[in-house]
């Protein structure tokens, strides 16, 4: 029997993997991609709850999350390209201007 918990645990695992990627990877593009992975995990949880509660509002919220994610990706990748033009690298280890 398929339960809500199945989907929630899968969503948690995906979110965890995305979090590991954000923390561990050094390339700015891959970090952005792992952020997308985390957002996808949250979307899956929203859709599962929408099904479980028999309401469609969760799906509407997922639509808004997708809009925000698309905007975030567009601006984030533009920033990555701009950084690459200036510095010639996409490794976050080399971007230490604002670190002390």
């Amino acid at each position, binding site marked *: 029997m398929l339960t809500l918990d199945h989907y929630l*645990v899968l969503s948690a695992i995906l979110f965890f*993997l*995305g979090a590991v990627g954000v*923390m*561990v990877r050094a390339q700015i593009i891959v970090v952005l991609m792992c952020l997308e992975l985390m957002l996808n995990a949250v979307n899956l949880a929203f859709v599962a709850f929408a099904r479980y509660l028999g309401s469609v509002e969760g799906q*509407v919220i997922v639509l808004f999350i*997708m809009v925000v*994610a698309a905007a975030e990706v567009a601006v984030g*990748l533009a920033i990555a390209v701009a950084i690459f033009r200036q510095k010639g*690298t996409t490794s976050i280890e080399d971007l230490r201007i604002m670190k002390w």
Partner: protein
Amino acid sequence: MELAYFYILSFIVVVSAVFVVFLRRPLHNVLFMILTMIGVACLMLQLHAEFIAMVQLIVYAGAVMVLFLFVVMLVNITQADLLSQLTAVRGWAGALVAFAIFGIILTVFKLSGEPAIPKAQAAQQLSNTELVARELFTTYLLPFEIASVLLLAAIIGAVVLVRKSR
């Protein structure tokens, strides 16, 4: 049958997500990310969210990932960059934080019991797309318009950021 379908799909999704996180070359990351997105779309289909699943396929697996692919090609990551890793201390600290997040999420799960997904809501006449559209264009009309303004702002921001300064 449903359960077997779920397990196969979640196996594909989790394995390709692991590849997204741990493979070295960004191009491979992007390709496995597309596989993950498609798997998640299939899971949403299983949850009877047909419209969202299609949007996931077209917008995420289609548009967003192609955008990533373009940037990966454009940026031309060098060999030295490929090998560049976080310093060991920072990497381990990051992994520890990620595990802490996972632990917090799992404690939330222990509180919830084992609720089953209800059987299909008694004979809906409306399709899923129609239901989402009704909700979107009545209750959530204002957020919908604001979202379009947000997208406009993102377009302008991206153009301004990558434009060559003169």
